[in-house]
């Protein structure tokens, strides 16, 4: 087992950083993250709980392929909480793939900097465990160094998204209500088109049933 930890200070308030954290992907620095999906999300006692599925591509050196297989699409499960009162965002990620031999657990904490409320402190830790394969220690070292590199890129990516958000805020074109309204409108459109295709299906089914009766 290998544990890796790191700390980083963002020169932005917690509110900005947490907004950016949700919009972290895509960013040009971490092209390895290719998809995210919200599986569950709920507010319980004022705390936002989210379960996301994160899809990524990891590239390993060739010598490891025989041990853990070639780079494929990997899936990870990310569980997070955002407590707006305590101003704490915690994201816990663990991998779902890499077979049964490798376990990667990562935790990120975003909190206001204790000495400066206009800054945000990110604490990061990762636990890597490789078991049941030869050269476990080498594999753990390798994964840890990949995680360390990726963490650096992840922070740069987040800075990039913050820049994007700040630009948006300056030139804000649409109000929240308008976005919420247009979302509702497009759901109606989706439901409408779903209904239409259901009608088509039933019409065709009726036609087919009729044809079968005739023959």
């Amino acid at each position: 087992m290998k544990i890796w930890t790191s700390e980083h200070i963002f020169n932005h308030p917690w509110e900005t950083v947490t907004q950016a954290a949700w919009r972290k992907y895509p960013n040009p620095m971490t092209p390895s993250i290719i998809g995210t999906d919200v599986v569950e999300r709920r507010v319980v006692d004022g705390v936002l709980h989210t379960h996301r599925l994160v899809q990524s591509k990891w590239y390993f050196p060739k010598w490891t392929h025989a041990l853990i297989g070639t780079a494929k699409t990997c899936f990870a499960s990310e569980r997070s909480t955002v407590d707006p009162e305590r101003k704490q965002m915690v994201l816990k990620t663990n991998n779902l793939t890499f077979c049964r031999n490798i376990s990667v657990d990562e935790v990120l904490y975003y909190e206001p900097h204790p000495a400066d409320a206009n800054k945000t402190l990110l604490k990061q830790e990762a636990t890597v465990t490789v078991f049941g394969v030869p050269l476990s220690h080498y594999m753990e070292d390798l994964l840890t160094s990949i995680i360390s590199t990726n963490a650096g890129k992840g922070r740069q990516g987040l800075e990039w998204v913050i820049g994007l958000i700040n630009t948006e805020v300056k030139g804000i074109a649409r109000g929240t209500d308008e976005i919420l309204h247009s979302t509702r409108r497009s759901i109606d459109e989706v439901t409408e088109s779903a209904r239409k295709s259901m009608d088509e299906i039933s019409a065709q089914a009726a036609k087919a049933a009729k044809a079968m009766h005739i023959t």
Partner: protein
Amino acid sequence: MDSVGEDCNELKQQYDACFNSWFSERFLKGQTDDSACVPIFRVYQECVKRAIRDKKINLREIDPIFETNSDEDNANSSDGQQQQKGKS
């Protein structure tokens, strides 16, 4: 950012837009009512769950917070890992 299900991308984008504006304009300002994006979330969820099933992705156990309304989930608890290993 894409969804696991190619056909869910458009729904996902609409949902993300709704969520991002709810998160910054309401949730961070103390309004915890999360009903604003529920309709689009439901449609998007159906699509994603279908894609997850089709791709045979095993999400392991679902966090208890989403099954009951208890708040036993603690961000700093360390027994989450054991649960996860026991299951696989």
